[in-house]
């Protein structure tokens, strides 16, 4: 397989010892198998996420992303920009749509960028890692390197919001996207396609500011997975992963439930299916251990 190269936008949560550090570990293992070369955009900065709106104005938020695009175009020309975080992807892409479609905003952004010695003149598209997997490889190609079947493990595919709306993955529906189920099946796992909370919001940033309202959402997400007989939840979003894993104990404490559902990334189950160890798949990075995946991961 020919090596594919991308300009990589890791985002804050993927950094060492940050909340999605194990996502990054598993992405690295998955990419090694698929011969994907990710080169970090040099000196990248935060995308501002969705929640920064009351602190930063539109131009400030757009210019943060414009700086990343400009650095990518300068140092890694002609390579598509790839993000693994749902929020990074959405906010970058939204900023790019605005920059490329609004000449006045673009002029203002360049006026601000000048202060950092940069000038935005367009960039390659901003894509999510899932898009790269589906569009540049395809399920058939992704299946080829599988050495450890995930047979017998039931996965509820929790797509969440920001890899699904407003942009989403081409060809998928907003109400019932199937790509996560197809990825699970390609790895030999059992996809619970009837799982009915797959695009429910976990509360996002409001999990921190409005915990009770958000925990109601998280409860729905977890409870429905149990109802469908799931062994674990699989997601493409770092905030979905963190919120749904971290707050289960809070919901148990406040509401007397007994939730203990592991939440993993698509890249983790791919890393395991590709023969990765517990460590290489980042399976040692959970509060709620995905024991069934750990059991079949290569003992190394």
């Amino acid at each position, binding site marked *: 397989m020919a090596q594919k190269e991308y300009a990589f936008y890791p985002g804050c949560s993927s950094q060492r010892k*940050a909340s999605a550090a194990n996502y990054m570990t598993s992405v690295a293992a998955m990419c090694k198998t698929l011969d994907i070369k990710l080169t970090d955009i040099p000196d990248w900065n*935060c995308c501002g996420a969705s929640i920064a709106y009351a602190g930063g104005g539109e131009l400030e938020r757009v210019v943060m992303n414009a700086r990343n695009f400009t650095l990518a175009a300068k140092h890694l020309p002609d390579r598509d920009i790839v993000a693994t975080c749902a929020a990074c992807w959405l906010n970058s892409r939204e900023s790019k749509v605005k920059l490329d479609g609004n000449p006045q905003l673009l002029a203002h952004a360049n006026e601000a960028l000048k202060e950092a010695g940069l000038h935005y003149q367009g960039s390659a598209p901003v894509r999510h890692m899932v898009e790269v997997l589906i569009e540049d490889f395809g399920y058939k190609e992704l299946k080829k390197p599988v050495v450890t079947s995930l047979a017998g493990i039931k996965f509820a595919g929790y797509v969440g919001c920001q890899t699904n709306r407003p942009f989403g993955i081409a060809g998928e529906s907003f109400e019932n996207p199937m790509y996560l189920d197809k990825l699970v099946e390609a790895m030999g796992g059992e996809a619970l396609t009837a799982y009915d909370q797959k695009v429910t919001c976990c509360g996002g940033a409001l999990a921190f500011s409005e915990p009770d309202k958000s925990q109601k959402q998280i409860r729905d997400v977890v409870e429905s997975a149990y109802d469908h007989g799931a062994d674990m939840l699989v997601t493409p979003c770092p905030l979905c992963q963190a919120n749904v894993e971290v707050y289960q104990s809070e919901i148990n404490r406040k509401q007397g439930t007994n939730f203990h559902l592991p939440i993993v990334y698509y890249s983790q189950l791919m890393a395991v299916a590709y023969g990765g160890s517990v460590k290489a798949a980042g399976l040692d990075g959970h509060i709620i251990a995905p024991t069934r995946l750990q059991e079949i991961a290569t003992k190394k």
Partner: protein
Amino acid sequence: MHALRTTGHQTIPAVAARYRNNFLKEVEAHVEDGEWVKMCMQCGVCAGSCPLGAHWEHPPQELFMMIRAGKRAEVLTSDAMWMCTSCYNCVVRCPRKLPITQIMHGIASYAQELGLAPEVQPTRDFSIQFWKNCTKTGRVNEMKLTVGLYFKDGLVAGIKQVMNMLPVALGLMKAGRLNPFELLRGHSPKDQKGIAAMLKRARAIEAQRAPVTH
């Protein structure tokens, strides 16, 4: 229903007294994607699609109608739009393709800029804290963000929160996903100076672009 306290408390009666029928124009000029407000056809799909729908004092379509009816103070002092989780469900379902999420953020941001946002609004606080956090160096410091969140209501409330979440925090540390040393020094890009200068300039341009005239 508790009465909303607002940061602009003293000025509201004066604003309300001065009857305004051009609030829609004001929103179009000053609110991000505000020019879309007039396109709303009042179907209410946004309200029915919102994960936090039950908690909105006024759902989006009602805010849009209130804007068109000139209810300036009621809209800007409301805590409704602060309920938005940025899930974009309303955006993809809206038959008129309004960028509702962006407009909600825009109205909230404008209310904040004018000092009319509710004084006690946890999402407003978190939003400002997040922006300060991520622009201080150019990348988020998750440890400082978490500590800041728990101690925002004082030391005692903070300790209680920390005690509740301590097993989770320790679990995350053990899993290598939370680093207490970030309190001392977190991740950051190299060109912090350039980022700061860039943001300062952007803010200055924005202040010029959207003068608040009342």
